[in-house]
């Protein structure tokens, strides 16, 4: 079909009723400290990757929790698993393990080919 340069923009709204939160559930079960995050951004502030590229661990957490999984998969690859973020978290969240578990969850899930 001829392309005329028009497109329909995809809505930006998070639809919590229909989003898939199985990745979040997978992590909650294995790393309960994931629930304690208060979205303060300490982890992202200290993250080397975050200061060099567009990557925020805090944002990644929230997107997983809301079931915005497409955006998460790309981001996950950027984390070097250095563990600096664990040192600053005021809520004792095992941040590094969350990245590890998220990768695992995507690999196991048939819905997401990684």
């Amino acid at each position, binding site marked *: 079909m001829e392309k005329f340069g028009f497109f329909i923009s995809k809505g*930006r*709204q*998070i*639809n*919590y*009723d229909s989003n898939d939160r199985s990745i979040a559930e997978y992590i*909650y079960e294995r790393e*309960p*400290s994931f*629930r*304690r995050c*208060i*979205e303060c951004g300490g982890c992202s502030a200290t993250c080397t990757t975050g200061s060099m590229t567009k990557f925020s661990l*805090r*944002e990644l957490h*929230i*997107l997983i*929790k*809301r079931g*915005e999984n497409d955006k998460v998969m790309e981001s996950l690859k950027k984390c070097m698993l250095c563990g600096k973020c664990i040192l600053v978290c005021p*809520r004792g969240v095992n941040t590094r393990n969350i990245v590890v578990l998220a990768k695992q969850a995507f690999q196991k899930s048939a819905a997401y080919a990684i």
Partner: protein
Amino acid sequence: MSKHVVVIGGGVAGLEAAGRLSREGLDVSLLEKDSITGGHLNRWFKLFPDRRDSSEVKDYLEGLTHANNVKLFTNVTIEKLNRDKDHFSVLTNDGKELIADAVVVATGFDLFKSSRKEEYGYGIYDNVITSADLEDMFRKGEITAADGTVPKKIGIVHCVGSRDEKAGNLYCSKLCCVTAVKQAIEIREHYPESTLFCFYMDMRMGGAYYEEMYREAQEVWSVNFIRGKVSEASETIDKKVVIKVEDTLAGRPLKMTLDLLILMAGMEMSEGGIKLAGLAGLKTGDNRFFEATDHHFGSNKSNVEGLFYAGTCTSPMNITETISHARAAVSEVVDYLKNS
């Protein structure tokens, strides 16, 4: 003859002040507009942060007034309050005139009338209720949606009528964040299958063990906290509630369908207090609460000599603070009477 003090308001502050003043050897009359004392304690079931039964605090306060022979007048409102040279004349709706050497005003707060925030549909949609309505449900031991079914997805809106120019209240009511956390936990305990969402602008957990309770709500009870002000609620054809909010930390708008929406109503200066301010020429602040003469060291003193404030008629306070403030008022009254 011992001096006579009139205490106006039989809630937490009034009961504490009246009981203690009487214990000091003063002759005390306590005036209450309702048929019973205890004020808002009568409506709240369990208290934060330790979740004790509110009746325990009420029993303590009423025990204090009974043991000390406070004269209690219920169903009484004030029609006139004048200061005459060195005493006060208090005229009540039943035609009594009380002559007092000092007055303690403990008229408390009213809960914000949530129907004023029309965008949330309280009083219009079946499944929008307030924090106070939920306490009634806790007391009955039955938490249900309007049609009697078990609610599964439940949302809690923080700051209803507080921190809101549109509601005319710029201040933070201080206690609704912790109330939201407490109520979310209580619902989860009652219905382990339920999912809870708190929509907040800031989590203000400024009290002993409040933050710990917030953490417990997340960790033990899996309560979800989403930062954003709910802009509006609407009702679906099957009476569910759809809310719109920006998930500000995700930077995206979010919509969600809920079985029950609970509004955390804020605290406002009571109507009784506003009326009294007019009758007695008492100063009120921009927030409409009574304005004490000094914010730091005169928080019980009014602009009328011999008339003192106790409790939430001056600003939002929790029960611990209210009781402390009432005790401070007692010491001001005792000082004043000694020197007058």
